[in-house]
């Protein structure tokens, strides 16, 4: 049974259908990639899973039980944590305080351990508002991990990072998967990263799911190539 299952989910905003009849399953222990061009509905799907939006129809279940009647702050308690595309930190609080807020509902790991794991020891007492973007992203990741999640949703973790940082990020995601016993769903434009770490890739385009499979297979899929850049190969389609 899939840890997370999304079944026939549709979400409209006024006349615009942001997500249309999307189904996908994420198996326990998997790193799943969710890719697609801008506006494909990836972030909307994240917001549906974490309860910030409610679907117009369809079902979202975690560990076999529906998430749709759980308010956002309780979804964390059930074991689903996330990061944000544009980084949503608490800018007036220190790095340590941000991580401590992450432990609000059910912190299991000591904050100091998380700071060490993500290389944030040196900046623990700095306010997050003044940190470099790449560091902010790691703080957000540490905060999400602090809640002791079973499923981690990462919304474009490589966005705004340099080449070396992206390589490190890939290694980091693989490492935390095993050390925190995690399942990861990853929205990403950065094809090299997704192809490097994901066990399975789901592709959205205009709110609909157009493909699913192992990374290498999806990469060769003509429908996916078409959706990205007409005839070009998708690895050039980095954000």
């Amino acid at each position, binding site marked *: 049974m899939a840890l997370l299952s999304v079944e026939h989910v549709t979400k409209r905003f006024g006349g615009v259908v942001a997500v249309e009849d999307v189904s996908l399953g994420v198996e326990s222990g998997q790193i799943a990639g969710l890719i697609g061009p801008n506006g494909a509905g990836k972030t909307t799907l994240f917001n549906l899973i*974490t309860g910030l939006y409610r679907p117009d129809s369809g079902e979202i279940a975690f560990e076999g039980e529906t998430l749709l009647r759980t308010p*956002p*702050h309780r979804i*964390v308690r059930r074991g689903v944590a996330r990061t944000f595309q544009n980084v949503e930190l608490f800018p007036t609080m220190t790095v340590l305080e941000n991580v401590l807020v992450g432990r609000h509902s059910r912190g299991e790991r000591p904050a100091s351990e998380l700071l060490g794991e993500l290389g944030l020891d040196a900046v623990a007492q700095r306010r997050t508002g003044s940190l470099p973007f790449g560091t902010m992203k790691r703080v957000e990741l540490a905060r999400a991990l602090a809640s002791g999640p079973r499923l981690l949703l990462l919304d474009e973790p490589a966005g705004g990072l340099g080449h070396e940082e992206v390589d490190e990020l890939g290694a980091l995601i693989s490492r935390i998967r095993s050390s925190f016993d995690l399942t990861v769903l990853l929205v990403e434009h950065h094809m090299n990263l997704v192809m490097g770490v994901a066990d399975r890739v789901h592709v959205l385009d205009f709110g609909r799911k157009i493909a699913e499979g192992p990374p290498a297979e999806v990469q060769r899929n003509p429908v996916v190539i078409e959706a990205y850049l007409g005839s070009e190969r998708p690895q050039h389609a980095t954000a």
Partner: protein
Amino acid sequence: MNRVLRIAGGVAFAAAAVALVLVLPHWLSDAKAAEFARAGCFFIAIIGLNLVTGYTGQISLGHGALMAVGAYTTAILTADHGLRDLWTIPLAGLVAMAAGFALGLPARRLSGLYLALATFAFAVAMPALLKRFSGLTGGSQGINLFDEALSRSTGALGHVHLAGWTLATNDFLYYLTWGIGLVLSGAAWLLVRGRLGRAFRAVRDSEVAAASSGINISFYKTLAFAISGFYAGVGGSLFVLVSNWFVSPSTFTFDKSLLLVVGAVVGGLGSLAGMALGALFIQFVPTWAANLSSAPGAPSVFFGTAIVLVMILLPGGLGGFLLKLTEPLTRRLYTRSE
């Protein structure tokens, strides 16, 4: 080591504040002691407002009305129910806490200017409500404990005998308001430094991230308003005592709510250190402004100018300025310890 020093610094600051409060009356005239006691009431209410606005980021233009709830609780219980005025102070806090909870309910749905307007409506309606329920509140005449419950009004006859000491009434009221103020600011400090304070600030900084970190936003917003209501209620209760045991609807018109916002902002939102300075500012600066010129409207202009000057010159408020002054000293202590 850092942590030990920071706590030691906090204790030293608290000890200095207590010492200052204790010795100050020796240099104060009787009339000045009364004015300081009044500032003490504002101090307590402003701490409460700061919890909601400074820490949780929810603007309230209704805290003057919460003070009114506390004030009338004290006046009614003392005049009509035979309680001694001093014992009604915590009860006034609790009743205003319930009112604060109710005032916080709109904050679950509204934010920013819309919440400001909802709380504004509460402040504007309060005097009319007080007049409407005249059976309870004495209508526009108000309640005068000096006439109605002299024997239960502590110190109303000019002196207070306390454990073998005799204190002039205004000195007593000064110690009472600032003593309660210090205790309540200590309590606020304990509240905001841990899990609760982090949840408040998380709601202020980013609601979406707070919710995604497991924080029940509605709960913490209403909790902030309720705790804040307790503070405003205690401040309002004491305000009856320092106003010659008298309260009427015109004591708590809308401008009291605005004055509290001025005090909190001038004192420095989001820090507790400046709240006493903010209270002194709204108590004394209008009086000084009135002494500068008696031309029509001139005092208001001076008061307004003083606010603008503080905002431009001291962006962190008076409290931020205070911290900046002591920063070189504390930093030297920290570095020496490492």
